[in-house]
Structures are given as structure tokens and as C-alpha cells.
């Protein structure tokens, strides 16, 4: 098996880990971090694909993922700060419950 293919398996494992994080964690910061893991896993898959085919496009897509992730983190964290200021907590279940009331 080629390293690139093994890297794809690695990407799958990392992605799934991120998914688990999003589902399991109740804290907004951890959810955001899990999303970052998924982003990163996706990038890894691109790079692996690039290596597999010997084309630069996959790597370029990783480069495009970077600003997207950066923007996402910037806004996500700003929102997290706002949420924290309003509800004094980052626990998603608590927030949802207080919004329903």
C-alpha cells in the first residue's frame, strides 16, 4: 500500500474523530476545535490525493482551506465570546435550554 493511501486512511480516522468530538462534546470551544480537526482531516485528504496523482491541485486546495478555516475560527470564536457574555456559559445544552424559556 502506498503511503498516500495510508494517509487517506489516516484522514478518515481523524475526520471521524472530529465528528465524534462535535457530537459528544457539549462545550462550544471544544465543538469548534473538533470542527478544526475535521477541516484539517479534509486538508490531509486533499494533500494525499495530490500525492497520489502527482498533481498540484490537491495541495492548492489545502491552501484554500487555510483562509476558510481562519475566517471560520475568527468569527466562531467572536460569537463564542458573545454567547459567553450573554449566557455566562459555553455549555450548549444550558444555552439551548435558556433560549427555550
Amino acid at each position, binding site marked *: 500500500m502506498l503511503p498516500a493511501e495510508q494517509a487517506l486512511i489516516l484522514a478518515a480516522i481523524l475526520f471521524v474523530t472530529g465528528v465524534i468530538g*462535535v*457530537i*459528544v462534546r*457539549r462545550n*462550544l470551544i471544544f465543538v469548534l476545535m473538533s470542527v478544526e480537526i475535521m477541516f484539517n482531516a479534509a486538508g490531509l485528504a486533499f494533500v494525499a490525493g495530490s500525492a497520489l496523482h502527482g498533481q498540484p491541485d490537491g495541495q492548492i486546495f489545502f491552501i484554500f482551506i487555510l483562509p476558510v478555516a481562519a475566517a471560520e475560527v475568527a468569527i466562531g470564536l467572536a460569537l463564542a465570546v458573545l454567547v459567553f457574555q450573554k449566557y455566562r456559559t459555553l455549555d*450548549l445544552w444550558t444555552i*439551548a435550554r435558556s433560549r427555550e424559556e
Partner: protein
Amino acid sequence: MLQHGQPILWLIPALPAAGAALIFLFSKQMSGRAAGRIACVSVTLCFGWVLFCSSLLLTWPGGNMLFFHEKICQWLDAGPIQSDIGFYFDRIALVFSIIVSGVGLLIHIYSCEYMDGDEGMRRYFGYMNLFVASMLVLVMADNALFMFVGWEGVGACSFFLIGHWYQKSENCVAAQKAFLVTRLGDIFLLIGLLLCARLAGVSYLNMSGFAQIDDMKSVAEFGGIQGSTLITIAALLLLGGAVGKSAQLPLQTWLPDAMAGPTPVSALIHAATMVTAGVYLVARFHALFALSPAAMLTVAFIGAATALYAATCAIVQTDIKRILAYSTISQIGFMVLGLGVGAFSPGIFHFFTHAFYKALLFLAAGAVIHALHGEQNIFNMGGLKQPLKGIYLAFLAGAASLAGIPFITAGFWSKDAILWSALTTRYGNAGLYAAGLATALLTSIYSFRLVCIVFFGNPRKEHHIHPPGPLLSWPLYILAFFAIVAGFINIPAVFGAHPAWEHFFTPVFGEDQAESLVHSSGYEITATLGSGALAIIGALIAWRLYAPKREPIPAPASEIGSVLTETPSPYRSSLANDLFHGWRFDALYDALFVRTFRIAAAVLGWFDRTIVDGIFELAAAIVRGFNTLFLFFQNSRIPRYALVMLAGAVVITTIVIMSIPR
């Protein structure tokens, strides 16, 4: 003021209508007295114009002018419903409009003093003027549908005026009752008119269109009913309207309660004019009624029964206005009896004299009530002969006329003409005559019972008596004069006089007027003397029973019987009690109709809220069920969304894998 030589007729109702408009539009700027003055002036002008039109009609060159007719514009136009706005001034309309405007004028003048200082004086005069205008439209409309405008208009004014003192709930309920009961009759009338239009074409509804009356006989059938039966049905439906408006059996219950209104209102609307609209209607449609002997018999029977019924009730009442109210029902019963036996012109004659003496009695009663500051129970009065001399004399004249004291009173001549017809015309029979005689006796008894208790003896209660002013007294004297002399225009020929009234109406009623089948002057004189003697006997009985020296009947002070609470009856005997409550018709109707209506309304209200709405709410509940189902996916918690996305991803991936060709 003349158009093609004819007087302008629309001015007659327009003048009081203009007065009403003026009062309503500027009611905030004017005082109550100013409103009274405007009302009086407008009715005076109206009365003057009526007299002018009448004199023109009567003195028309050649002497054969039967009516003025004036079409103003087309009003309704839809298939069988055709109607104009137009006026028709014939001899029936002439008599009615003279009474309406003339007696109306006197009552307006009277009201200026009677209502002085009342908070709602402007409103009062506005409605009174509106009433006069509506009543004139009623009697002068040139077709039946336009007449219906006046018909309903007077009903509405009656409603407003009965509820004049609106702060007492029972007055409002009485007003509502009057409106609803008469409206029930109006619906019959409306259906009757539609049937007439259907039967003989719309022209039948025109007052001037009686030439085509024979078309009615040629009507084959409608809705599977034979033509002659249809004519009876149409006549009976019209009679339904008349019964409602004129408070005849079985729709009479509203009139005694209508006494909740101010006394002049009772005098004008509930004695002299509006309640006689039924008489007008039957007289106006005499051609239709004459076609159906069965309908005529029904009319006569209702009239006789009502006359007797109301007289028995009047004899035990304690409230001065209620006595007069029952008396009005009874006297209108007389008129209807007259119409029913084909004596149309005596029927109208009785309306004519009754308008004078009953308005007089009401106004005099009002003056007494005014003098005693609102006291209405006759057993709290007494001994008023001296302090209220003028009123006493006027009242006495009215009561004598009502009782039919022979020869000298108007009531005698008109009542006698009806009684004679009831005995001798082709529609008449001994039963009707006997009922009429009994009523005459009872009438005399309760009239003089009233006079004895109110004016003779000692005062039963201390009252500070407020003397009547000139505006209150003079209308009484004028009416008293007419209550005595109005009868002399129709003294039967057997007494050697000239029955001008009969001749006046001969061209109007023509063949429909049923002539007496007996042509024996001795017989007629005997009958006249007999009925006159009955009146005197009645007066003597009353004197014997209620003579001033005797102890008065101990009667508890009872307010006017209201619809809300049954007045406790002053009598021990159950028969007298039942009579006092008008044979308990109210209780019967209350149980039969009013309660049924209320229960039905309440049940349906519940049904609408619970069942009908419930069905749609059920649909909403089902949707809500789906909502809770889908809320599992959308519970506003990010992890749940992620889980759903994950599930979606799994599903899609599975599909992709399944679809990979192997």
C-alpha cells in the same frame, strides 16, 4: 307648490323628516326647548300642508277626484320586486294623515311641557318627528314595498321611544320586545307581499293598481297550491303583519309593556297612530281580503277575540297606563272586527274617533302622572276631581267616549256602527255580535272604574300636586271637543241624519263594503239603543263597585309590570291574577320561544367553540404531533444537528457504495 295642478305630496313626510334631521344634526348646539319648538313648527307646517292637500282633493272641480298620485323615482328593480318612491293620497290616506299630523301636532305641543327638563329632550323630539314622517310615508306610500319603509320606520321609532329612559333595564327590554314581536309580524307581511307580487304581478303592490285585482282570481296555482287558497294565504300573511303591528291576538303581548315609554309617546304611537297601522293595512288591501271569505272570517274572529280578551285584562289592571294599553288593544280589536265583517268604513271611522279619545285619555293620564310626579298606580290616586278640574272634565269626556255613552259621544256612534255590521252583514254572525256587546259592557265598566278610582273619593296618598300648565291643558281640551263631536259626521240614516262618512268612503271601497242585509229601521234603532243602554249599565256597575264612599281595594303599590320581573299581583283570586298578567301569555311565550331561542343560541355557541373549532384544532394537533417528532432532529443543540448530519452522511455514503458497480 303645485305640480300639474296637484299639490306636491312629498312635502308632507319631508317636513317632519327635515325637522328630525335638523334636530339630530345640530343637537349639540341646541337646547331641549329649541328642539321642541322646531319639532312643533315642522309638524304644524306638515299638518297645514295635509289640510291643504285634503281640501284640494275634496273640492276638486267636478268632485270626482279620488286620489293624487306622485311618482318621484324608481326605487327597487329586481325581477318580481319592483317599486317606486312615490306618494298616493286618496281618501284613506287623507283620513290617516290628518289624524297622524293633527293629533301628532297636539301631542308635540303637549310634550313641550311634559318633557320639559328631561335630559333626552332633543332625542325625544327628533324621534317623534321621525315617527310622524315614517307614519306619513306608511299611509301615503304608493306601493306596498315603499309602504314597508314607513312600516318598519315607525317600528324603529317605537323602539327608540319606548326605550327613551334607557337607564332602566326593563324599559330597554320592553322596547326590544316590542320591536321583535312586531318584526315577527312584519316578516309575515313581507312574505305576503312577495306572494302578492308573485300572484298578480308587481303592479298589484301599487296602491293605484287595484283595477287588476280580478287578475288574482285567474291565478292558476303556485307551488302546488290552488289559486283561491293562495289568495287566502296571501291575505292571512298580510293579516299576520297587521296582527303584529296592531297588537292583536296572538301577538298582543308587547303593547302593555310598551307603556314604559313617556306618556305622550304612548298616546301618539301606542294608541292613536302606529298601532292602527294594521287597520290601515287591511283597509288598504280590502280588495284582496274581500276575495276570500275565509280570510275575512279570520280577521273578524281575531278582532272579536282580541277585543274581548283585552277588555277582560283591562278590568283588573292597577297601572293607569296599562289599563289604557289594554283598552287600546281592545278598541283596535273592535276596528279589526269591523273590517272583518266587511264594514271597512265603520272600521276606519272607529279608528278616527278612537284616535281622539284614546289620545285624550293618555294625555290626560299623563297630566295626572305629571301632576303626581310619576305616580302611575291608580290605587295611590283618588280625589283628584277638585285639584285637577280641567283634566278631570277632559278625562271624563274621553272615558265617556270610550265607554260609548249613547248619543253624545263620538265613541258611541263608531262602535255602534261596527256592532250593527257585525250582526247584519254577510260576514257577520250572532257570535261576533255577542262578543262585541260583551266587550262594550266591559269597556264601560273599566272606563268608569278608572274615573271613579282616580278622581273621586279621598286621596289615598299624600301628593304634592303640580298643576298643569297651558301647553299641557289646551291639547286636552281640543281633543276632548273632538272626542265628543267627531261622531256626529256619521250618524246613521235611521236617525234622520246624513251619514257623511259612509258616503265619503263609498267610492273607495265600492262593492267590497259589505252592506247590512237587514233593512228594518226599527230593528236598527233597537240595537243602537241596546248597545247604548249597555254602556250606561256598565257605568252604573262601575259606580256601584268603586263608589267613592266605599273602602278602596287594598292594593299594594306595584310598579309598572315589567318584562324582567313579574309584577306581584294585587289580587288574591287566581282568576284575577291571570287576568292581571294578560292571561299569562307572556309566561307561555317566554317558555315556548324566548327560552328556546336562548338555549339554542347557547348550545350552538358551545357547539361552535368546541365541536366545529375542535375539528380544526384537531388538524392542528396532528401537525403539532409531527412537530414533536421532527423536533428530535431540530432541538437547537449543535451536537444533535451534527448527529443528524452524520446520519445523513452515512446514508449517502451507503447509497454511493451500493451503487458502485461490482
